[in-house]
């Protein structure tokens, strides 16, 4: 199938055309403040370059940092009513409790705690207070709030009370948009609730952004279906993305890793993405980024979100080099590399200048670095290589040698040989790996819950069935489903041989 992948980054908007397993061409253009213009430019650029017919593309996949930036900069956020079904438990730590004050100020619209929730074995703590929910819904409507986040204790096990609360809300306040916590996440009430409230706060921006993307595509003469990429390396339909903008958080590193997998043909490898300011290093397992286990903060808010396990290093093509004593970064010229770097006529020594001097790449005017002492260049490049070697060792999941895929504009900084590395691959189109990753994304479904008194086989089978159903609901072709992740963690103390199982399934777009 013919697809278009677009990466809307902080500096550049990249577009790439893909036909099955072939890359037809790519185009890079500066990102514009309105986003739409940058996308139109990138699309017209790549279509002109490849002379491809717009109508032949069935799908456009966009990766964007838009929502992440909105939270980080506290802009374009919607006020949210937080409903938690938990009483008599969890009273003391109310919703928003561990948010940075400035973000809470922008998002908190109303807090309601209601009786209900479940125990870890699936029994209700107490019956759900439906009358209280009805009152809360009316109050939210009267206050003019249009976005609601609902979280119930142990809802990843049973979503019964969250669904019932949503039904009552719809009856009393049909205009309200609602996010239910079990659709987002894992065990860990506060972190799951945080993700729910963040998602609800992006409601208006998500609608607007999605419409801007659709406009850009229509104006470019495309009739393709629009998808947004998620942080787990898969995509969701634009309509779904409007409801779950939070899933797109941190999709950038994921896309470059998936792009690396596609370009190299490898499914298990370390991907090193060297940009202008930072290097992101992650681990591909069965073609997908390994997820982080620990708590992930978004804009200062603690979540247990599905995020790729990425180590970022302050090292890139624009990273400044100190001569005496020798130091690499952490400061960088960033997007000003083309003005400030030596080979581009500037007067600051950067990693790109080192690479040009050492003959690792041809860029700018090599004559401008001809007088750099060879000992300095050798020592500095040596240090850059050791930094990369060390971070690769930190991200590895096994002691055996692994292949490394080097992508991004600064891939030339990655050494050809390293300890613990079987080979280093640098690939054509590696500089737009991000957009490639967007273009080849699949659809996924996940199950993460606690099972009791079942055999391990039964548990995995049940979890798999739930994950598959969710993948199909998200737009996957049932015939292409594949399990990419199975993890079961026995829980100490819990009754009846309890096991927490996580299964993730992916498939091609239907």
């Amino acid at each position, binding site marked *: 199938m013919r697809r278009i992948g677009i990466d809307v980054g902080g500096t550049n908007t990249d577009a790439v055309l893909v036909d099955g397993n072939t890359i037809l061409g790519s185009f890079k253009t500066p990102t514009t403040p309105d986003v739409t213009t940058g996308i139109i430019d990138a699309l017209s650029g790549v279509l002109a370059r490849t002379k491809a017919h717009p109508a032949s593309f069935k799908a456009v996949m966009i990766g964007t940092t838009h929502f992440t930036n909105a939270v980080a900069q506290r802009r374009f956020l919607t006020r949210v009513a937080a409903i938690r079904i938990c009483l*008599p438990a*969890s009273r*003391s*730590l109310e919703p928003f409790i561990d948010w940075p004050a400035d973000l809470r100020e922008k998002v908190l619209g109303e807090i309601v705690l209601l009786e209900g929730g479940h125990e870890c074995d699936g029994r209700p*703590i107490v019956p759900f207070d439906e009358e209280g929910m009805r009152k809360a819904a009316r109050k939210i409507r009267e206050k003019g709030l249009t976005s609601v986040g609902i979280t119930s204790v142990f809802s990843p096990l049973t979503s019964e009370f969250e669904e019932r609360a949503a039904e009552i809300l719809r009856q009393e306040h049909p205009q309200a948009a609602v996010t239910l916590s079990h659709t987002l996440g894992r065990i860990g009430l506060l972190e799951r609730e945080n993700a729910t409230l963040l998602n609800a706060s992006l409601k208006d921006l998500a609608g607007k952004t999605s419409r801007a993307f659709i406009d850009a595509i229509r104006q470019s003469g495309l009739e393709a279906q629009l998808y947004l990429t998620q942080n787990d390396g898969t995509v969701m339909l634009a309509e779904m993305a409007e409801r779950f903008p939070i899933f797109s958080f941190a999709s950038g590193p994921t896309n470059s890793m998936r792009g690396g997998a596609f370009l190299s043909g490898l499914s298990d490898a370390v991907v090193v993405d060297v940009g202008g300011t930072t290097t992101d290093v992650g681990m591909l397992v069965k073609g997908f980024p390994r997820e982080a286990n620990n708590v992930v903060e978004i804009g200062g808010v603690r979540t247990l979100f599905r995020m790729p396990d990425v180590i970022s290093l302050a090292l890139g093509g624009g990273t400044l080099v100190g001569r005496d004593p020798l130091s690499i970064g952490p400061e960088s010229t960033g997007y000003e590399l083309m003005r400030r770097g030596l080979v581009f006529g500037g007067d600051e020594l950067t990693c790109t200048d080192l690479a040009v001097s050492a003959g690792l790449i041809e860029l700018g005017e090599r004559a401008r670095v001809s007088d750099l002492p060879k000992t300095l260049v050798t020592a500095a490049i040596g240090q850059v290589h050791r930094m990369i070697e060390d971070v690769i060792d930190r991200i590895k999941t096994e002691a055996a040698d692994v292949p490394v895929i080097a992508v991004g504009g600064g891939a030339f900084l990655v050494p050809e040989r390293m300890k613990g590395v079987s080979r280093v691959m640098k690939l054509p189109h590696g500089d737009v790996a991000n957009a490639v990753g967007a273009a080849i994304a699949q659809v996924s479904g996940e199950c993460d819950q606690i099972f009791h008194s079942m055999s391990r086989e039964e548990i995995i089978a049940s979890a798999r069935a739930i994950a598959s159903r969710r993948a199909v609901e998200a737009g996957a072709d049932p015939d292409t489903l594949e399990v990419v992740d199975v993890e079961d963690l026995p829980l100490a*103390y819990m009754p009846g041989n309890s096991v927490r199982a996580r299964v993730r399934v992916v498939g091609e777009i239907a």
Partner: protein
Amino acid sequence: MSGLAPVTEEDLKSLALGAGILGTGGGTHPYLELLNIEKLYLQGRRVSLLSPDALGDDELVAEVGFMGAPLVTKERLPDPEQILKAYRMMERYARCTFRAVMTSEIGGENAILPFFVAALTGLPVLDADPRGRAFPEMQMSTFAIAGLPLFPVALADIRSNEVLVLRTVGPKWTERIGRGICTEAGAMLATCRPPRTGGQIKSHALHGSVSRAIRLGAAVRRARREHRDPADTVLEVERGLKLFTGKVIDVARRTTEGFVRGQAHVEGSEDHAGRLFKVDFQNEFTIGWIDGRLAAVVPDLICILDALTGEAIGTETIRYGQRVRILSLPASRLLTSARALEIVGPRAFGYDLDFVSAHIEGHA
């Protein structure tokens, strides 16, 4: 001399980190408990630490702690009122006036719980505990080791169910009966254990536990500020050994009889390059070997710290690739007597080996 010292908000942050380290892999950083006590401080409540020396021999101290699966408090969030309820039950039943509150164990989440009761009642927190670390079962306590009864025990769930265990034939029965009730009540209960007198505490409790945890946490925070090795700053304030430096290369985990059991392998680096550390765990880290030779044995504390952040790594969070510093801290001699070792020594965890300490000079 009042024997009272105020606990600042900075101390609380340090306490949380230090309690994580003393959890020896079982307890973890008490994030939600810390949020709760910080909120009480924000409302103007304050807590002081009381030195055990300042207790009259007949004055009584209440011992509070959670019982159950730590995972449950991640959903049914810990609430100061629930701990207070267990405390009030004991107060009513024993018809006594408490002089102070203490934790049932300084390692992990429980370290913060007496601060809830203290903040809500105005009582001080006692600078002592009966474990000096984390242990998986109720009878693993210096009071039980000393032969003091483990009853009455007050159990409070999150509804209005209140259970008093009035009498048991032995500490292991208190554990067994409590565990059954706990399962029924949603796998997590607040407990108030038998009142202890000043005299009992002076002879049988571990003194200075809370200030020790605060000191440990402060040392880790200093390492972060000064970009130093957390193992070094910890050992500046604590008697102990740097056992090993390396990277986790393998973790095998399974569950039997209600415990998370397993083994982790750590490959040496820096001054331990070329060597291998193996550690067994049963909820907590129990036994450590370097190149096959016994290096640390329970009840001595095996503390595994993240090499960069100094944050304690738990038996449920240890995983491949983590860069770690492994410390051994000596257990108190109240935990290493012949009688104590029957209850908390290697044989109590199913090992056919004798306790040997890496800390030759004897115990604090």
